[in-house]
């Protein structure tokens, strides 16, 4: 069949990719955000390729099938460091991150030039509940609120409203583990009334977070403080990148990513701070919610606890950090805004430390207990999963401040394996890609 000029033209568009992130998959987000011919989209309806990145646990496969089926045709999937589902016979797997943008583009072009068929649907074409022709009015039940018209029951009044006492209907749904605004792997059962979250139950935990190998080395031996601090800055910048993307601020997110990519001990974060402050990130965005009590903050650890007024930082116990004049920075409010301000302040502090340490060539002294960007880490104390905390703090927040709160909290447990971070792009490579 001849391919129409429309399809040819469509093949030239940047590839709209919906990323479904498995274990360790978030690395592709940062790579693809800098690729010139990829557009990362937030809904599978807007995508032509489903990119499954990183290992997906067996209990999340059903959810993955659901997302897979929600891409409108023509669509296909690409599996990055992940074994394709057995049903998808001609699915492509790829492990080299540098080849990823090219592979995505190739799939998209083949799809539109009709050299590759769309992925088959994985789930049977059945409504959630049988309904047609059942019941009094043919909607599967009796009465005005009964039945399952079109396969689903009607929304009902289930919960008293927790904000202003005017009780109307509530919606209960399970969201995640591939919801792009959530930490990868996390899913929750949520009840909302209007756009206010009434109840929140975390169901599957976010994927373990891997740290830069230098932190693992630091537990074994003495490492250069400059390297350690730069790795810390990079970690925080990556988190800020996700937070800013969620705030609908792509240009600032890319600014952060560029900073992270070209990080040296001479880097400065002044321009970043100016940008965040001048364009009103701290005043305009939904940063008012998610206040952590001291006890809750201690459970999360790391910058989140320091944002709630604890000056708990293992670096102050290291002799060489003391030589550098280190003292922990902290904020008191404990809300989302304070957490981002804390992250920004720690980025600046770490850059300062890195610069000084590089000049004096200082190494860490203490390898028993180190402060990772995720929190204190020693044999007794390891950052554990804190996503159950969300069940306590999210109810009562509006949807936007709920999601902003989740983005600002680093709640995943620490992985035993270091991050397989790929080498940062050099300037010339980026030009050529």
């Amino acid at each position, binding site marked *: 069949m001849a391919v129409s000029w429309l399809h040819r033209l*469509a093949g030239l*568009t940047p590839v709209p990719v919906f990323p479904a992130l498995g274990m360790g998959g978030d690395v592709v987000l940062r790579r693809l955000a800098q690729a010139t011919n990829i557009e990362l989209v937030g809904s599978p309806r807007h995508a032509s390729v489903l990119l499954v990145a990183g290992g997906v646990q067996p209990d999340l496969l059903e959810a993955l099938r659901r997302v897979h089926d929600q891409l409108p045709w023509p669509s296909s999937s690409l599996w990055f460091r992940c074994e394709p589902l057995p049903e998808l016979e001609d699915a492509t797997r790829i492990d080299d991150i540098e080849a990823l943008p090219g592979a995505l583009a190739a799939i998209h072009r083949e799809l*539109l030039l009709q050299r590759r068929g769309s992925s088959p649907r994985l789930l049977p074409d059945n409504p959630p509940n049988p309904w047609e022709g059942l019941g009094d009015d043919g909607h599967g039940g009796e009465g005005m609120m009964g039945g399952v018209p079109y396969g689903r029951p009607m929304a009902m009044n289930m919960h008293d409203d927790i904000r202003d006492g005017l009780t109307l209907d509530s919606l209960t749904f399970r969201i995640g583990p591939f919801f792009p605004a959530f930490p990868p792997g996390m899913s929750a059962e949520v009840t909302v009334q209007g756009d206010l979250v009434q109840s929140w139950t975390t169901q599957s935990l976010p994927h373990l977070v891997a740290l830069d190998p230098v932190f693992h080395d630091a537990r074994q031996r003495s490492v250069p403080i400059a390297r350690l601090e730069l790795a810390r800055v990079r970690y925080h910048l990556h988190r800020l990148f996700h937070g800013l993307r969620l705030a609908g601020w792509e*240009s600032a997110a890319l*600014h952060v990513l560029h900073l992270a990519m070209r990080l040296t001990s001479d880097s400065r974060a002044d321009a970043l701070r100016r940008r965040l402050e001048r364009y009103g990130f701290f005043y*305009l965005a939904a*940063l008012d919610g998610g206040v952590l009590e001291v006890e809750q903050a201690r459970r999360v650890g790391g910058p989140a606890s320091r944002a709630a007024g604890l000056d708990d930082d293992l670096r102050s116990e290291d002799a060489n950090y003391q030589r550098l004049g280190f003292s922990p920075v902290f904020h008191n409010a404990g809300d989302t805004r304070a957490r981002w301000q804390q992250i920004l302040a720690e980025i600046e502090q770490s850059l300062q430390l890195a610069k000084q340490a590089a000049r004096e060539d200082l190494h860490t002294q203490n390898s028993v207990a180190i402060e990772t960007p995720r929190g204190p880490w020693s044999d007794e104390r390891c950052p554990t999963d804190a996503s159950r905390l969300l069940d306590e703090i999210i109810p009562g927040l509006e949807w936007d401040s709920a999601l902003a709160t989740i983005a600002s909290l680093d709640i995943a447990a620490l992985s035993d394996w270091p991050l397989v971070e790929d080498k940062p792009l050099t300037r010339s490579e980026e030009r050529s890609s």
Partner: protein
Amino acid sequence: MILNEMVLPIIVVLAVLVGGAYSVAVMDRVIATRLGAPRAGNPWLSPLTRGAWLLVQQANVTEAPDGRAWRLAPALYLALAATGLALVPWSETLVATDLATSVVLWGSVEALATVVIFLHGWSANAPLALIGAYRYVALGLSYLLISMFVLIGVALPAESLQLTQVVMSQEGLWNVVRQPLGLPLFLVVGLGMTFWGPLNLADSTDLAGGTASEVSGPPRLVWDVARAAMLVAFSGIAASAFLGGWLGPWLSGPLWMVVKMLAVLAVLLWLGRVVPRVAPERCVTGMWVVLLPLAFVDLIWAGVAALWQ
């Protein structure tokens, strides 16, 4: 006579509708690239390739949508943008709809845009789209008063609600100088009407695309085009109300309009990319408690200036 009064204006309006939406897409991409977004390829071609892709993509349907309303909403939004554009005067005589109350009709376009955007999110029968729709109504009902105050401000010196009269009243001095608060306030309205950038409460990232989260294929194309066209219509009204419309030396009237509209568009698109999204509650409070009093001040300013002359 028919040629001059009807056919020509209709052709101009439809051409600007299509060409304007296209140039919005091109400009937005150029601005994004300037701000550091990695985009390859020809910016002139990219709106076309994207349009082609949406045309060949399947149009998604949800389980039990309000099908007709769902398909009607993008078309109606486009029609509202066209109505707005029809009110824009290109020269003293070249104007499609020169009503004595065209300023009020623009106010109606703003009010009805809220209805249409709500309908777009409501019809999908999906939780996230629904939240987007209701959020937008909070914004839509808040910017309306600001816009009306600001536009009444420009009607005072013109002693008329007719857009051509408003332009002619700026013969000596443009309203952007005479009523300095007016244009900045009106630009906020423009971002709100098209839920662009910081005021994108309807189709935001935390809702996976909000009202458009369930939309794919041709309906999404129409929605995107309508949104861009609305931005163009808005810039036309802003240019006429504050930047002296077709007035200006050397160039011909329509050409001046194009230049001024492009300037307004550039500012809007730039604002859309450099400011983070505003929280809905903060947005409503800010509009009523900060911007509305400012619009009052603008009106008083305009009133004093109009009597002074």
